[in-house]
């Protein structure tokens, strides 16, 4: 590539151009449409990998053109390239997952629209990441929001439209904040181009607080940290599963990307901003974790865990040292991988059984060993179990919070550690109730090869990047300007060997004691009776059928009823921590106060008309 810039623009143009093409192509051949979207996303991923050598030394500028007063500019930096490759990888996984997943709707919905929007969504995200000028970024940001809105409401159910509207209105509120921030920046600093902002034009100190707050809120709505997270747990479960994987895997990361970029690359902000972000992150970890524990909807549980994990990234970013940024960015990458995997895995569960309720699921591990294995890897990675990649990034974050020279830094460490304990607890609920447990639902259909590949690939990446994290470190080296040196070595290989050894020893014990031969199956006893011998008619005359199933929701509810954290769950149930509802309350209160005037009586309306006329005439005559 003699002039890589030309090819760089292809990253943006190809998905956007292919979006209507795929939409139209689907009218003629569904197979061709599926192949084309797979090939395009994979091609973009390959192309983005090819760019890595070019951004090691510095940013790559593609195009800067002045249109009237506005400058349109695109370019690639090491961080945005990392984002582009993540976006295209997850979009590829989603596009090979989707053809079989869409069979769930049995042709009732417009699948062509789905694939067209998927590529448009991808183009919007890539554009929002590679834009080097803030207004350009804003256009693609809105494209991303809009495409995501139509994808979330794709199922056209009442719930999905409600969730989609909530997402859209909150996002637009955020977008207004971003727009106001950009305008304010333009007025005060005279430019919105990132390169100029970085080099010549400084942030006006008088306006730095409003500008940065506007950006934090605006991008924060997408990044979904507490307390502006509330669209996420509604929108994620209602979207089709591959779309949830994209929303949680990367769309919220685009928000985080801009927070990192604005706060650390463009303006090196004061330490108090960093502390604010870190503390927000710590609260987000804990609140997301606690709320995830009590969810009984498989996708809602993972959605709340996304909020919790966003807290980790925010914490690392807020710490802001080389180590903290490294931990935050690596956790961002890792979270994209394992959360994409978990949402796709949940998608397979939904596809196979047709339900999202954890209590109705169970025993799928036996039916789908490959999917089960992949999801377990993703779950362990989420919980941060060594030697997987989730542990690696969390480990850097722990070290960063220890080195952070602030009095409250140890409390960040406690929040991060406790968040990990919570994640172990909720992810056990997910794995147990869906894949282990009693088999309780009939399997409607089995997953196709595309679905299996889409969960196996990120699982392999999670394993590989956990045992061999060097490529990750290499790719973030230019972002944070060198890798901070860790003393000592993390013996990932050794831990992996030991864990495998422990499993082998366990298997050996089972073989040694001849467990299979020696096992007999008998019903469980309760109070001297068992399921078979119990005289139901005599003891439980009003019960149709005694239910011996153990429901995970009931087991985990004991945490909910614990007096100390109960207030949090009550607050969540009654929407006390939901700014969307709060705004709607304010709006309702305002309109209610005017309701008396709008009562449908003609005589009253005539009074308003004439009094208005009198006021206008009076104003006109006195001027």
């Amino acid at each position, binding site marked *: 590539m003699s002039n890589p810039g030309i090819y760089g623009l292809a990253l943006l143009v190809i998905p956007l151009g292919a979006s209507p093409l795929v939409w139209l192509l689907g009218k003629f051949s569904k197979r061709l449409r599926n192949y084309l979207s797979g090939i395009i996303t994979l091609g973009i991923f390959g192309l983005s990998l090819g760019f890595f050598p070019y951004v090691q030394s510095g940013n790559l500028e593609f195009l800067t053109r002045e249109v009237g007063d506005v400058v349109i500019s695109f370019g690639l930096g090491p961080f945005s390239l990392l984002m582009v490759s993540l976006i295209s990888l997850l979009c590829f996984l989603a596009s090979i997952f989707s053809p079989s997943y869409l069979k769930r709707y049995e042709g009732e919905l417009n699948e062509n629209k789905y694939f067209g929007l998927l590529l448009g969504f991808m183009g919007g995200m890539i554009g929002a990441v590679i834009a080097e000028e803030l207004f350009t970024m804003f256009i693609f940001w809105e494209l991303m929001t809009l495409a995501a809105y139509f994808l979330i409401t794709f199922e056209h159910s009442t719930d999905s439209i409600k969730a989609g509207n909530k997402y859209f209105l909150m996002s637009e509120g955020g977008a207004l904040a971003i727009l106001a921030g950009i305008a304010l920046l333009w007025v005060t600093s005279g430019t919105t181009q990132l390169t100029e902002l970085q080099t010549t034009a400084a942030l006006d100190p008088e306006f730095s607080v409003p500008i940065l707050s506007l950006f934090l809120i605006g991008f924060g709505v997408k990044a979904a940290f507490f307390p502006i997270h509330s669209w996420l747990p509604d929108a994620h479960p209602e979207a089709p599963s591959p779309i949830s994987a994209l929303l949680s895997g990367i769309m919220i990361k685009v928000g985080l990307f801009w927070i990192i970029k604005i706060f650390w690359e463009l303006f090196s902000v004061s330490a108090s901003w960093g502390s604010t972000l870190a503390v927000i992150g710590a609260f987000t970890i804990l609140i997301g974790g606690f709320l995830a524990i009590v969810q009984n909807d498989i996708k809602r549980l993972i959605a709340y865990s996304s909020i919790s994990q966003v807290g980790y990234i925010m914490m690392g970013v807020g710490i802001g040292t080389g180590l903290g940024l490294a931990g935050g960015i690596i956790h961002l990458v890792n979270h994209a991988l394992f959360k994409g995997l978990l949402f796709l895995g949940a998608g397979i569960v939904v596809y196979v059984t047709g339900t999202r309720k954890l209590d109705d699921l169970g025993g799928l591990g036996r039916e789908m060993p490959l999917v089960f294995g992949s999801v377990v890897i993703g779950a362990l990675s989420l919980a941060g179990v060594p030697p997987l990649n989730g542990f690696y990034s969390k480990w850097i974050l722990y070290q960063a919070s220890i080195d952070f020279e602030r009095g409250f830094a140890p409390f960040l460490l406690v929040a991060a550690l*406790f968040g990990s304990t919570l994640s172990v607890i909720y992810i*056990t609920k997910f794995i147990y109730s869906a894949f282990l447990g009693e088999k309780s639902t009939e399997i409607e259909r089995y997953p196709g090869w595309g679905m299996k590949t889409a969960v196996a690939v990120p699982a392999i990446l999670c394993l590989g990047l956990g045992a061999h994290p060097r490529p990750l470190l290499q790719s973030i080296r230019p972002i944070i300007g060198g890798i901070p040196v860790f003393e000592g070595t993390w013996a990932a290989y050794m831990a992996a060997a030991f864990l495998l050894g422990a499993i082998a020893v366990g298997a050996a014990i089972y073989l040694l004691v001849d467990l299979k031969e020696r096992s007999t199956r008998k019903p469980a006893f309760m109070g001297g009776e068992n399921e078979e011998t119990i005289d139901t008619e005599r003891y439980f005359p009003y019960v149709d059928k005694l239910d011996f199933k153990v429901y995970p929701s009931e087991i985990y509810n004991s945490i909910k009823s614990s007096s100390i954290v109960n207030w949090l769950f009550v607050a969540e149930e009654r929407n006390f921590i939901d700014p969307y509802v709060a705004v709607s309350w304010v709006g309702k209160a305002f309109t209610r106060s005017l309701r008396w005037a709008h009562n449908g009586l003609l005589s009253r309306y005539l009074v308003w008309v004439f009094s208005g006329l009198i006021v206008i005439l009076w104003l006109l005559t006195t001027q």
Partner: protein
Amino acid sequence: MVGSLVFDFFVFPGLLFTLAAGILASWVVRKVSALIQWRVGPPLLQPAYDIAKLFGKENIIPKGGAEWSYIIAPLLGPAGLLLASIILVNSNYLGTSFIGDVIVVLYLLVLPALSVVVGGMSTGNSLSAMGSNRELRLMVSYELPLLLAVTAAIVKSGGLKLAIFTARPVAASVSGALGFIAALLCIQAELGFIPFDTPEAETELMGGPLIEYSGPLLGLYKISNLMALLVLPLFLVTVFLGGFSTGWGALWGAIKYLLVLVGIILIKNTNPRLRSDQALKFFWYGAAPLALIALILAVVGDLIGIGWV
């Protein structure tokens, strides 16, 4: 390299050592308890006999339960404790320590409780489900003060490496001592000992999560308990009391370990059982503030540079 790994895994800090030391520790627990209650107590090898007997018995799998998780769950506990033991002992004995091994050990110590929860949920028995329920709640309650106390120790010693903790005993300071007390109470709950044995409460739940388990699988749970008796006090000794080293240091370490163990046994034998909600209140309103004070003191001491705070 491979040879030493195999040796590590199977012989010295690994399987054989953990089992032998666990059996010894279990004997100490039973003997001291017997002495407190004016009984004679069992012979030295009684715990080993018990386990050998369990491994010779038939295995009953409950029909209404979830077979897979019922069989896999008992393995989690011993596997986690084995790894924790290897990391702990090696970092003390050989000084091979990596950054973050405290965290790894904390993670691994969650596994035994988790294995009890998953095992209890998969038996299809409502009593064991209730036990799992209580175990989860107990986990949420003791994890917070434990993490606060360990973080206080981390601040005090200034790093995430176990080898750093052993350089100077953390408990030789006000914050370290407070943290040690809080952590000791948490270890009591993590071991499932009275006063925090609500999940297994024999008198009401008849063994709780383990009610349906029999034969080799129950034996694995017993092995997990044995190993926990070694690993959890050893974790406290390493993090708060300066660990142990080679030579005479090993003997001194063993004495410290025994003191912690006997302390745990004394608490066990002189207290009544707390209700599940009382345990939660105890940890969140009692132990957690204590550990929080320890952490605040440690941070203040670190900032103004006074060692003994």
